[in-house]
């Protein structure tokens, strides 16, 4: 558990440092995720403590969005002015994305 958490933090740290050095506009943790994925590919398996800890962390993933979500209170003014544009964009884009993904996948499966 402690080893796995250390590992995740080390990958995140390496990701952040690489992003700073390269100037890539990609979030550091995403680079860390990619590096961990490549490491697992090379090693050919995921160690059990890492699997357990990741599962623990990800099973409570939605809790982790709450503090940022509460930040919506800082944007009430903006939401009041732009809610219609944002709402229409969200609904239409979600339907279009589902349709496009499903249709292309079915087309390429044949």
């Amino acid at each position, binding site marked *: 558990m402690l080893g796995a*958490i250390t590992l*995740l*933090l080390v*990958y995140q740290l390496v990701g952040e440092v690489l992003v700073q050095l390269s100037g*890539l*506009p*990609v*979030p*550091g*943790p*995403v680079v*860390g*995720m*990619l590096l*961990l*994925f490549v490491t*697992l*590919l090379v090693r050919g398996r*995921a160690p059990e403590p890492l699997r357990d800890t990741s599962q623990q*962390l*990800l099973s409570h*993933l*939605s*809790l*982790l*969005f*709450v*503090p*940022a*979500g*509460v*930040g*919506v*209170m*800082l*944007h009430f003014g*903006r939401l009041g002015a*732009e809610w*219609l*544009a*944002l709402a*229409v*964009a*969200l609904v239409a*884009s*979600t*339907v*279009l*994305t*589902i*349709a*496009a*993904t*499903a*249709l292309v*996948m*079915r*087309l*390429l*499966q044949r």
Partner: protein
Amino acid sequence: MKLTDIWVYLSTSPLLGLTVTLVAYHAAFWLYTKAKLNPLANPVAIAVALLVALLWLTNTPYATYFEGAQFVHFLLGPATVALAVPLYANLERLRKNLLPLSGALLAGSLVAVVSAVGIGWLLGASRESLLSLAPKSVTTPIAMGIAEKLGGLPSLTAVLVVATGILGAVLARGTLNLLRIEDHAVRGFAVGVAAHGIGTARAFQVSETMGAFAGLAMGLNGLLTAFLFPLLVRLWG
């Protein structure tokens, strides 16, 4: 010690912000199970509403609350890194369907960003809102990272991402039935690309196959959007 003194003491310590976050989430999750996991009773949305009401009633600034809540917020980073593990576990599925999955991922990822930004722009949304809206189909920790990097508002993104997840979980069945798509692998992948973790949770309630493909789609779309979106922004200028 008077009650107000206790309040003055507690309101300056991070303990309170952290504790109310966890308590609100537990309450919201309890309601979610009472609602039989209906996507409209999303626990993040309920917890956020409870906390916003609490801060508003007690006249507490967000910055004060965040001093405590930041300990939870910090875990988004390692959680993002941890997404590599389920992605790796789904590797076999990816290998067997490499062409259809990569084609569908690319199409879905592009349509998600371009349609959201395009429609928002046509309806007059501001540039900051558009940048916060663009990564809405990506799992929250990655989406917030993307928005932050490119000048959006991460907290607005968090809210838009959760709203998208709820919409995807509610609208997927009707959309896919209309298109007469029955294969659970295709249905799951489409929901995962469009509606990340909330869509994936929904897909797992229908079948194991649907859930696994949704989870795979969520991880891949997060990665792809993180690399693709900065390029799109550069093109857009």
